[in-house]
């Protein structure tokens, strides 16, 4: 029997590992961030094939890899700019009221067809501003999880063209959305950030940009100017696209753009400046974005050069869709990938291409720059050749593409060498073959002195586009097959789990007197009904946000049900009422956590004002706001109480004299160190707490295997084992939770006591497993997770806890502390204390109980607890799979999946450890 729990737990753990691994491979696209940066000297040092005949005019201190082709770039980003905001309405089936509002751009496009262009820019999902800005600057495909060095700060760690600009001494000015200053905290010469958080504010950011933009256009001390308008995005979020505020907003933007183009036309120093007006992503008619539908990804990019360009540019422009503009002239548009933006802008400005960029220099955008028509790469002998403009341009472009391909190949090689999950090897072979062919053709054409023509350009393009496709499939597409197999394994594991549980259950019924069978069955059904309610609730994003409250609601329901049955079988007991009051306290804690979350989570529309405007009520009443009342004293008092309680309980439960002594002293010392830490902030104290906790934990296992803890009756032995285990863990968890810790742990202890004492109403044998109690235990664990100020997104991690006792940052150490803080109170403590559910009621009936029966019950409790966690997690997985195209999939469902998957694996591991330790 003892073997059974171990074997079952191990089997379930393996199944879950496999399921989580497969599902994660299919669902959570991961990409490793490489920390390498491109350097100007790379091209010379690496013997790149393209630089064999660097132009003789180039001096060694050329800042980039290619000569700059424009002097300045003015980038105006209009957040959530739809393609149909800019393109002429004649391209669409029906003219809507939001179309043709940016008439200044259309006017430019129709009157200067050879120096301006409207592009349909295809963004890659996730179409959220942060991810898009990252993609636009690094030239990569940011995924949900970018495995990198950054722990909390959103600042971009990868190579990007802003960094390259700063590195090569260019001056960058930024105005608008403050996301830019978060991403690039130290890069801008001047920045005018405005808060982007308040969605209801349509004007602050735009007016701010408009106010600073014009003065800066008259100045000459900048090279790149970025203006980021947010009004269109916010108007979409609040009113939708088909609304009057949106039209007004577009007209305001149009007026600003008109002003800008007028200034650019009149100012001499802006003659060589490229104007780029672009969206970071688009939006649906409701103003939503984040997913991958065509409405969300089809944004726009408009480029214009005040200087006139050779007319042969028209042959470079792709044959494209054209429509009549407002003034009756034809306007043509092309399509480009937003992925290409970073490398194209680097080529225009003549800076090294960002290391991780996987785009291709866009030929049409490149052609719009006057410098690309200069004879930059041709040998001197060629100067006399009256070659056409077009030929020169193609030569230049082929050179740029060669360098571009070399850079992407370099990235592929170093990514495959270092990343966690590389690319499939077949595809890599194919890509390498393409690259080698293109390069050999390039060197052939060099040697045979016939100038590179379309063929080479096509081959390089082919290589770059193939790799972009491969990268997209690896980083942006779900693998439905793997997801399905993962989900299938989850379901198989549940069936297996149920089967084992049923076997153990029927076995335990053999030992029992049959009379209670029906009552116990009813309780199992009730427990599973509660699990089902909770599990189904994950289908809605609202319930995921309100998960803590839902768990609390269900816990309260069980408590009220238990009061009802106490009424039926006798009178209400003290612990029932205590439990209800505790639930209220926990609830206030959860709501406080939610109001904290609402401050950072745009999806959570939680009206915190209604509940926490409790001026009439001293804050004594709400959860851990205890702390504000008596900031120093109350945690200390509770800590003292806790140490007293644990001391008393250890001395009267643990029978072995030495163990009793060691554990008591260890616990007392830990509490003393915690108090010292809170009073003096000395960092040695937490370290001591961790050391004591770890050594007690190890000691437990050693003693367990030496057989020292084996004395006494089974029930007593189990109880003292569990107590020693819990006392080893609780001081560490308590100090990590901070000053709310003592209160939360006290709540945890009292709630546990209430659950244990209220269980098994109407059952004769009070040591039998009660499914409702196990369910309550699991609900309580979830409530405690939320009550301690955690929630299921990555900004819900309490990063401060990772630095208790340590000042400097080391990934592994801090990650462990953060892990213990996040899952300590909700997983580690509840699972290790599960044996109390079978051993605490120390009534006379339990005295003569058979050892086998007790272990059967313990096995049942652990199996049921694991089953409850497994079922809810499986439903999370299912809901994530169903909602994979949901707007909030990256904001909400994916983090929830990550937390639940980790929680499930942790639960399985802890159950295995418990099986080893207790059985």
């Amino acid at each position, binding site marked *: 029997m003892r073997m059974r729990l171990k074997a079952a737990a191990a089997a379930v753990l393996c199944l879950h590992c496999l399921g989580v691994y497969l599902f994660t491979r299919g669902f959570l696209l991961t990409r490793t961030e490489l920390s390498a940066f491109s350097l100007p000297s790379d091209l010379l040092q690496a013997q790149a094939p393209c630089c064999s005949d660097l132009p003789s005019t180039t001096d060694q201190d050329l800042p980039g890899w290619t000569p700059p082709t424009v002097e300045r770039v003015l980038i105006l980003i209009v957040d959530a700019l739809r393609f149909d905001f800019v393109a002429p309405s004649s391209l669409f089936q029906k003219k809507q009221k939001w179309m043709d509002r940016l008439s200044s751009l259309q006017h430019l496009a129709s009157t200067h067809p050879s120096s301006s262009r409207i592009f349909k820019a295809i963004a890659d999902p996730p179409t959220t501003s942060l991810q898009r800005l990252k993609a636009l600057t690094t030239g990569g495909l940011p995924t949900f999880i970018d495995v990198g060095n950054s722990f909390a700060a959103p600042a971009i760690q990868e190579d990007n063209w802003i960094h390259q600009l700063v590195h090569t001494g260019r001056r960058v000015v930024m105005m608008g959305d403050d996301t830019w200053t978060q991403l690039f905290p130290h890069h801008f010469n001047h920045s005018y950030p405005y808060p982007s958080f308040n969605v209801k504010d349509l004007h602050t950011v735009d007016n701010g940009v408009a106010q600073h933009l014009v003065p800066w256009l008259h100045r000459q001390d900048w090279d790149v100017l970025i203006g980021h308008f947010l009004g269109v995005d916010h108007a979409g979020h609040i009113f939708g696209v088909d609304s009057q505020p949106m039209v007004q907003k577009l007209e305001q933007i149009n007026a600003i753009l008109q002003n800008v183009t007028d200034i650019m036309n009149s100012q001499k120093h802006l003659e060589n400046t490229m104007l780029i007006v672009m969206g970071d992503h688009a939006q649906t008619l409701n103003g939503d974005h984040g997913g991958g539908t065509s409405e969300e990804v089809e944004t726009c990019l408009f480029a214009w050069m005040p200087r006139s360009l050779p007319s042969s540019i028209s042959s470079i422009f792709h044959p494209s869709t054209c429509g009549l503009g407002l003034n009756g002239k034809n306007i043509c548009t092309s399509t480009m990938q937003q992925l290409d933006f970073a490398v194209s802008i680097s080529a225009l400005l003549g800076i090294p291409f960002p290391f991780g960029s996987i785009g291709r220099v866009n030929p049409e955008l490149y052609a719009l720059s006057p410098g690309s028509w200069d004879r930059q790469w041709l040998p001197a002998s060629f100067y006399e050749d009256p070659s056409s403009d077009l030929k020169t341009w193609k030569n230049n472009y082929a050179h740029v593409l060669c360098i571009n391909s070399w850079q992407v190949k370099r990235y592929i090689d170093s990514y495959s060498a270092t990343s966690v999950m590389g690319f499939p090897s077949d595809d890599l072979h194919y890509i390498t073959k393409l690259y080698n062919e293109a390069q050999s053709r390039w060197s052939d054409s060099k040697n045979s002195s016939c100038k590179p023509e379309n063929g080479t350009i096509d081959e390089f393009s082919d290589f770059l586009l193939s790799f972009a496709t491969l990268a997209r499939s690896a980083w942006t597409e779900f693998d439905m097959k793997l997801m399905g197999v993962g989900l299938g394994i989850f379901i198989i594991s549940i069936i297996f789990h149920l089967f084992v549980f049923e076997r153990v259950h029927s076995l335990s019924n053999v030992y029992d007197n049959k009379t209670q069978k029906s009552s116990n069955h009813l309780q199992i059904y009730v427990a599973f009904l509660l699990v089902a309610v909770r599990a189904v609730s994950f289908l809605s994003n609202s319930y995921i946000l309100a998960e803590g*409250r839902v768990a609390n*609601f269900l816990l309260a*329901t069980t408590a*009220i049900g238990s009061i009802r049955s106490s009424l*039926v079988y006798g009178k209400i007991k003290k612990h029932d009422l205590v439990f*209800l009051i505790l639930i209220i306290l926990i*609830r206030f804690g959860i709501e406080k956590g939610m109001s904290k979350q609402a401050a950072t989570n745009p999806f959570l529309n939680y009206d915190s004002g209604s509940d926490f*405007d409790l001026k*009439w009520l001293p804050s004594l009443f709400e959860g851990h706001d205890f702390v504000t009342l008596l900031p120093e004293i109350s945690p200390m008092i509770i800590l003292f109480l806790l140490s007293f309680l644990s001391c008393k309980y250890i001395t009267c439960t643990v029978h072995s004299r030495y163990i009793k002594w060691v554990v008591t002293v260890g616990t007392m010392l830990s509490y003393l160190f915690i108090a010292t830490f809170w009073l003096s902030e000395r960092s040695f104290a937490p370290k001591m707490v961790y050391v004591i906790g770890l050594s007690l934990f190890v000691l437990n296992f050693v003693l367990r295997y030496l057989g020292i803890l084996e004395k006494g009756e089974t029930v007593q032995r189990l109880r003292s084992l569990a107590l020693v285990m819990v006392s080893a863990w609780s001081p560490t968890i308590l100090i990590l939770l901070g000053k709310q810790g003592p209160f939360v742990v006290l709540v945890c202890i009292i709630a546990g006591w209430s659950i244990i004492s209220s269980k098994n109403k109407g059952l004769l044998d009070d040591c039998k497993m009660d499914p409702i109690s196990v369910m309550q235990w699991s609900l309580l664990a979830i409530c405690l997770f939320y009550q301690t100020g955690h929630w299921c997104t990555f900004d819900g991690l309490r990063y401060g806890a990772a630095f208790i006792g340590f000042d400097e940052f080391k990934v592994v150490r801090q990650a462990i502390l953060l892990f213990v803080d996040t899952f300590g109170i909700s997983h580690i403590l509840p699972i290790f204390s599960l044996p109390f559910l079978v051993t605490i009621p120390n009534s006379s009936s339990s005295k003569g109980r058979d050892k086998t029966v007790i272990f059967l019950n313990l096995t049942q409790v652990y199996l049921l607890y694991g089953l409850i966690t497994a079922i809810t997690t499986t439903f999370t997985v299912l809901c994530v799979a169903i909602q994979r195209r949901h707007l909030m999939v990256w904001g909400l469902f994916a983090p929830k999946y990550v937390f639940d998957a980790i929680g499930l694996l942790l639960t399985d591991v802890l159950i295995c450890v418990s099986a080893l330790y207790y059985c």
Partner: protein
Amino acid sequence: MRKAEIGATTALALHSLCAAGLATGYWLSHSLYSSSLITDPAPTLRILTVCEAPVVILLFSWLRRDHDRCSFIKAVARGLIGLPIGALINAFGTIVLGAPVGLKFWPATIYWSMLMSLFTFVPAACVFGASKLDWQQILSYSKPSNIVDYMLSVPAHGAIIGAWLGAWPMPLDWERPWQEWPICVTYGAIAGHLIGMLFSPVLIFLHRRHIRTKTE
């Protein structure tokens, strides 16, 4: 007197009176004060409570258990005392389940718990008084010997289950006005109560037939 010997039809009639009380309250609030539950919940709940209270207390006092020892007036008094007590219990229960406790919700919560008290606690208080055994019996359904037991427990449980189910739409992000506390919970409770009132005569009918077949 007829000691609780009422049939299914009588029960249905009595229940319809209770329902009529509710309907009157709703109509009054709608026509006289032009307020609905969604626009201003607290006044509407107050009117509902005021209309329902006399109906419930008088009806169930008439059905009181111990006719010999307890006068009609005494039963009414029991009901009147039971109203605030039941309201307290209901309010406590709903706060445990997560109802907001902010000051601006107080009036609505108070009137809502009064109404719930009328659905659940007051009828039993009128009928049983403080008899512990009867209370236990009605909670456990152990011996549904009496027809009044059905009349008390089925609508009361209906109201509570309805209110519990009515709370589920509240966290959804539909941003409808009726998702506010206590509107949808009230709708749930009233719906559950009405269903319970429809259902209890059916149970009474089945019960009587069961007894009749037994005796035959």
